[in-house]
């Protein structure tokens, strides 16, 4: 399933004094199996962009093509397409509404018109994806759970629809380190094992360094960079100039280089930095 965005522009409050341009001529292609990270400062248009990907917002101008078909065309079944592109909003735990966790997760599959047996199978599958025990939580009220668990239940509600592309808007915002880690591990597995295409919006560079295979940098509604994390994180100056940073490992690496250590300039993962530092340490130690 390919998603292609052509010259997408979106203005809020068109035709009034409050008119703001949220996206300005954005073009982008999302390939199968990508783990695309979208980063940008607050108000850079990230959330607006992802809402276009399943037709919740209509472009002011430009097109969103799904498998070559215009998402906003006249004869397109948007409801069917929406089910193939799962969108998890910011703070998704605030959309939970059912009496039990199982019923809440079943909401999406039910709307797809699946049979009871299939729905049950989907609920179990989705719960296992988000590392929650079916027997433990299924019959609980979603409002009894902890914040991190609620978030995972909400994400399960979208996974249960078995989307081919999963889009998440700041899935780790406001979680403690453990909650954050479990969400990230879960996404890593979904991408690796289920081969789901994932688009994740975040402003945590460390999250992106861990997961993304490709990065898109937005600033004031425009695409300022599109490439692999290695390419983008090696441009520390540019990233800082648009109000973003680079992952902690990349920062440490560039400071070590400045201090005279012999390291490659494009390291951004903690593991690779550790490897190189161990090598340096071994070389420096006279045996």
């Amino acid at each position, binding site marked *: 399933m390919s998603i292609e965005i052509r010259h997408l522009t979106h203005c809020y409050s068109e035709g009034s*004094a409050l008119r703001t341009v949220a996206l300005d001529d954005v073009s982008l292609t999302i390939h199968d199996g990508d783990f695309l990270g979208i980063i940008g400062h607050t108000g850079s248009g990230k959330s607006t962009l992802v809402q276009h990907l399943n037709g919740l917002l209509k472009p002011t101008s430009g097109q969103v093509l799904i498998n070559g078909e215009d998402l906003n065309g006249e004869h397109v079944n948007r*409801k069917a397409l929406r089910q193939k592109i799962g*969108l998890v909003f910011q703070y998704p735990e605030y959309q939970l*509404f059912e009496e039990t966790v199982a019923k809440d997760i079943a*909401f*999406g599959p039910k709307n797809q018109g699946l049979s009871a047996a299939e729905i049950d199978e989907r609920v179990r599958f989705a719960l296992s994806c988000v590392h929650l025990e079916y027997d433990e939580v299924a019959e609980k009220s979603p*409002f009894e759970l902890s914040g991190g668990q609620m978030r995972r239940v909400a994400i399960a509600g979208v996974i249960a629809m078995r989307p081919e592309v999963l889009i998440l808007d700041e899935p780790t915002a406001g979680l403690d380190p453990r909650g954050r880690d479990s969400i990230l591990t879960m996404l890593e597995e979904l991408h690796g094992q289920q081969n789901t295409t994932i688009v994740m919006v975040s402003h945590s560079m460390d999250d992106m360094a861990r997961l993304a295979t490709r990065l898109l940098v937005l600033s004031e509604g425009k695409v300022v960079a599109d490439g692999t994390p290695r390419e983008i994180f090696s441009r520390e100056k540019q990233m800082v100039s648009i109000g973003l940073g680079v992952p902690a490992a990349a920062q440490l690496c560039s400071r070590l280089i400045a201090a005279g250590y012999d390291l490659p300039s494009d390291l951004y993962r903690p593991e690779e930095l550790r490897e190189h530092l161990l090598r340096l340490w071994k070389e420096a130690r006279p045996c």
Partner: protein
Amino acid sequence: MLNNITLGQYYPVDSRIHRLDPRTKLICAIVFIVDVFLADSFIGYAILLAFLYAVTRLSNVPFKMLLRSLKPLRMILILTFLLNLFFTQGETVWIEWWIIRITKEAFLQALFYSLRLVFLVAGTSLLTLTTSPVALADGIEILLSPLKIIHFPAHELAMMMTIALRFIPTLLEETDKIMKAQMARGADFESGNLITRAKAMVPLLVPLFVSAFRRAGDLAMAMESRCYHGGEGRTRLRVLKITRADRIAMLILALLTVCVVLEGMLF
């Protein structure tokens, strides 16, 4: 999809009208409403229309915004017009067919009452378009404060209004967000009969109520942690002051009233 509600929505620009004291604007709006009822001919309405036009120009609020605030009223307007048109007795018959009888008098009266509604809504919309909700509540609090003698809770009322108004856009935004999130999970809010549609509201209303209660709790906590203890001995950050512009505005409204009353007596 929910951002086209203007009634009570502040239009944030700067103008002479925006800078007026909220108390002045409240009093002027009330006087204007009285004037609308005092005017009993189209000449009186012409004066009021000229006044509304001048104030709108001065306020830098586009006419489009003002017209948009009349939109929710369109059904009532049409109904008022039609009822008056068909059920008023008159002498100069224009059309007579079967049981329908339209007279000149009926037409004029229909037009008159519809215009009265338009003036009422336009006048009050101008007040809310040019006055921020907080300023408005401040104005109401001071105007009502003499009633404190008879234990009328003026401060509490104003505070409740401020909070309610403050949360309208927040809740609208929240509704929009939850609606989109449920639509992303395949919810359908638009099709089906009345019962299916009412049922479809559950996934929207439950999260909305949960979040409204959460917000209310948070707000109460935030207010208490800043030592809020009701209106007793509370001073203001922005002390309202009647300036020359306010006196002029009130004078203009007084003149308008005089004009309307004189016109009613003369013609």
